[in-house]
């Protein structure tokens, strides 16, 4: 049996999605207050969870490749289109700070009862449709400043992959330490009890407002 399986069936999609949704919800990413508290430096969950996940998976892929379990160039690596990806990232970061979610976390918000996540998703469908109807005039920008196909940090920096992983690990540890200090100084991180209590109401110590359906 060779890996990846390149299985795009229904079971493959459901299994990947269920684990993804379950982990995001466990992290607290169904709550827009918790998500956006990253940007007021009160809650570093977004940075910590994301950086940890990237590192765990990157190390896993490195080990699977080194051990000959998966082949070189066997997994999809996106190609850089510098301006479109930078500006797209800016729009998503700005929209996330204002609207409270990104595409994946809005689905988690819907599943945990957030009405604002439904409205956010309707907005995303509108924004996607707007893009489709201005795509033609935007094409020059969309394809501008293309990087080498599937370029990775080891190629860009000219250092071995293990060294990139070590650098990212050190950056993560430094970021976690600074983040935890800032969190404590600002009264964070936000707890499940706080975000499951609508704004303007005091959290109840004995019984929260969370409804079990």
């Amino acid at each position, binding site marked *: 049996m060779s890996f990846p399986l390149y299985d795009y069936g229904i079971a493959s999609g459901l299994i990947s999605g269920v684990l993804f949704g379950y982990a995001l919800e466990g992290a607290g990413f169904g709550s827009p207050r918790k998500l956006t508290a990253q940007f007021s430096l009160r809650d570093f969950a977004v940075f910590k969870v994301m950086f940890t996940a990237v590192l765990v998976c990157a190390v896993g892929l490195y080990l699977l490749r080194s051990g000959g379990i998966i082949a070189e160039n066997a997994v999809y690596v996106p190609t850089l289109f510098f301006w479109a990806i930078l500006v797209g990232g800016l729009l998503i970061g700005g929209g996330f700070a204002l609207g409270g979610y990104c595409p994946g976390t809005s689905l988690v918000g819907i599943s945990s*009862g957030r009405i604002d996540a439904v409205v956010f998703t309707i907005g995303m469908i509108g924004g996607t449709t707007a893009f489709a109807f201005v*795509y033609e005039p935007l094409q020059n920008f969309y394809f501008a400043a293309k990087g080498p196909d599937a370029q990775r940090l080891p190629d860009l920096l000219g250092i071995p992959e293990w060294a990139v992983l070590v650098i990212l690990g050190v950056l993560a540890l430094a970021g976690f330490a600074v983040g935890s200090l800032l969190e404590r100084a600002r009264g964070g991180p936000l707890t*499940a009890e706080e975000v499951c209590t609508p704004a303007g109401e005091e959290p109840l110590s004995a019984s929260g407002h969370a409804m079990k359906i």
Partner: protein
Amino acid sequence: MIEKPQPFWSPVAAGVALGLALLLTFVITGNGLGASGFITRFAAQTSAWVAPEATATNAYFGPFIQAGKPLASWITWEAIGVLIGAYLGSRNAGRISVQVERGPSIGRGERLIYALIGGVLVGFGARLARGCTSGLGLSGGATLAVAGFVFLIGFFAAGFLVSAVFRRAWQ
């Protein structure tokens, strides 16, 4: 039934779980996890119901329509899985909370307007970038793709900037 919600997982535990789920997805499919790809297909399908001709001839949506059912795709099942997984997790932990979640300084109406505007920006941005926080930031970052890190720099830079300007929205 009302009960006290259970605490969220520690960020490192959640990050390890997310990283392993992502690794498993790469091993099964050769691709990472995504979300905006589903929104794109959903938007193409919705647009085709509302305006079939304009959608079929549209330069961006057209290819999805010409290929057949836009929603018949792995990413649709993955997105349904995300809804199910998040529902099971929040239900089991007593964390389902039906509310318009907002900061203490704004009302429901204002919050929903921000949610709508934010959604429009994110939807447009995800198409421009060819992916979102999941597909480019998380999955691209895990393959050490340069594209993933350029995306993440833009994402965090704009997040801090907009958050500072619209402090009122959440604080």
